[in-house]
């Protein structure tokens, strides 16, 4: 296994009285794709949102245990959440591009980071769009509304936008669940490309997708981490009965 990028120790999370995550300890390796699978409400998205502290935005959330990114506890008091999120990009279930042009969407994060130089911004737009494998489709219409793109293109543009701050980790929360098979295929190819440079954590409902794109897979059930191993092991020879039942479609 490669170096550990994200490490949680005995992480539990509560929404008010309700416990959503129970005592989760896991290591997520650097520059690999880690997939979270499990039925709805199992806590996989919640866990994803722990990593960039998006749960902070919901009131009444309490966390115990430790979350380390590059060995630093991100729930320590002296952590700047805004700065943290600049290092951890996020792609959401549905495209949430701003109603601005393609160009403006990409430069949004770089400009709030203080980059004003026009040629530098142009360079960022070109490299990130190329990284997200969408440059050829949009290079002639950078100044058109981003919302004029198709659903699949919009989602890849969201990925490009997340890459524009040069994060080290990209979190993806069911990025292809609202897309057709061809667009999904493109996203999966893209994930495959991106893992050379980024640590990717992806939540998915689609087990074939997890099997196709990920190196390691974690199976969550009712707020617990049931099994976490290499993807091949999980899908061919799971050690827990619950995992086997889930991946063979017996429940969930």
């Amino acid at each position, binding site marked *: 296994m490669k170096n550990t990028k994200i490490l949680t120790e005995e992480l539990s999370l509560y929404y008010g009285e309700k416990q959503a995550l129970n005592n989760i300890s896991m290591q997520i390796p650097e520059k690999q794709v880690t997939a979270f699978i499990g039925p709805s409400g199992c806590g996989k998205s919640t866990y994803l949102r722990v990593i960039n502290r998006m749960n902070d935005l919901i009131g009444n959330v309490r966390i115990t245990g430790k979350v380390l990114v590059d060995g630093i506890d991100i729930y320590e008091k002296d952590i700047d959440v805004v700065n943290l*999120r600049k290092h951890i990009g996020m792609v959401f279930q549905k495209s*949430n591009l701003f109603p601005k042009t393609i160009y403006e969407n990409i430069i*949004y994060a770089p400009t*709030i980071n203080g980059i004003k130089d026009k040629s530098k911004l142009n360079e960022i737009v070109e490299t990130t769009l190329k990284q997200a494998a969408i440059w050829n489709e949009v290079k002639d219409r950078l100044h058109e509304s981003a919302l*004029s793109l198709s659903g699949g293109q919009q989602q890849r543009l969201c990925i490009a936008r997340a890459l524009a701050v040069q994060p080290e980790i990209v979190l993806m929360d069911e990025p292809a669940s609202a897309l057709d098979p061809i667009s999904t295929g493109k996203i999966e190819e893209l994930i495959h490309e991106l893992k050379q440079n980024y640590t990717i954590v992806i939540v998915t409902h689609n087990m074939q997708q997890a099997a196709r794109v990920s190196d390691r897979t974690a199976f969550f059930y009712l707020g617990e981490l049931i099994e976490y191993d290499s993807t091949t092991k999980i899908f061919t020879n799971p050690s827990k009965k619950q995992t086997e039942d889930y991946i063979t479609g017996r429940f969930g």
Partner: protein
Amino acid sequence: MNFQKKNKDLAGSFFITSTKVLFGFLVFILFLILAKITYEGIGVVSLEFIFDEPRNNMTEGGIWPAIFGTLAVTTIMVVLAVPIGVFGAIYLSEYAKDTFLTRIIRTAVNNLAGVPSIVFGLFGLGFFILFLGQNIDEILGTGLIWGQPCLLWASATLGVLVLPIVIVSTLEALNSVPKSHRDASLGLGATKWQTIKKVIIPQARPGILTGTILAISRGVGETAPILFLGAAFFLPNLPVVDLCIGDYCIPMINPAEQFMYLAYHIFILATQSSNPTLTLPLQYGSTLVLIGITFLLNITAIFMRYKYRKAIGRI
């Protein structure tokens, strides 16, 4: 299988027909009012009528002081009320937690919109003139300037009156920005204020503008609240003062002056003039101008909303 119509939906068609008739009736009434005013007023309205001052005991001449006063009062009203309303709404929507206190504030804002406008007038008299104004005069020791009815307090009172309109429409505009856009911005490492400034306000702008213009057109049409607050019966000279820096002077609205007000002027012409029959054409003319101003403002609101929505790609 039988796909033919059996029972007609009687209750439904009765409802639709009666609604149509009632709406037709409403539109007809509105049409009647507009037609009568336009028919009687169109002959009176001319450039001279608009830019002249009332003459001969207000039975002749134009209405320029009233138009100018209306514009002056509403301008200051906007300057006072819109920033407070917009920032208040941003605070309520984006920063304030859902506590007992903020719920009371929200309820109060909504109820404020339902308070009769004459009550605002009395409030303005009591709070702005008798309390604020007189205290200011006492502290400055300059004699009676702010402790009497004047343009500033009329604007401030109308500002309080239209505040709920600005707040409610801004709140609606802010709420219409999807949560996913906030998540996107925060997820990219933007601060809350950057998110508000660069993502939320640009999208809410059409709604905020619409609210502002509706507030202006409400303010333009109000009569009751300014009765005690400096609206003058007849005052041919404009509330203007020259603001001089060295030798260079620019005319500015003088907030300490009294003023004429279009809506109030119509009321005066109709009820208080020495000869209400003689002023009848002037009443129609003034009313037509007033309706014209509010109509223009509303059209501007609709146009701006359309333009901004198109610009942000919602149409």
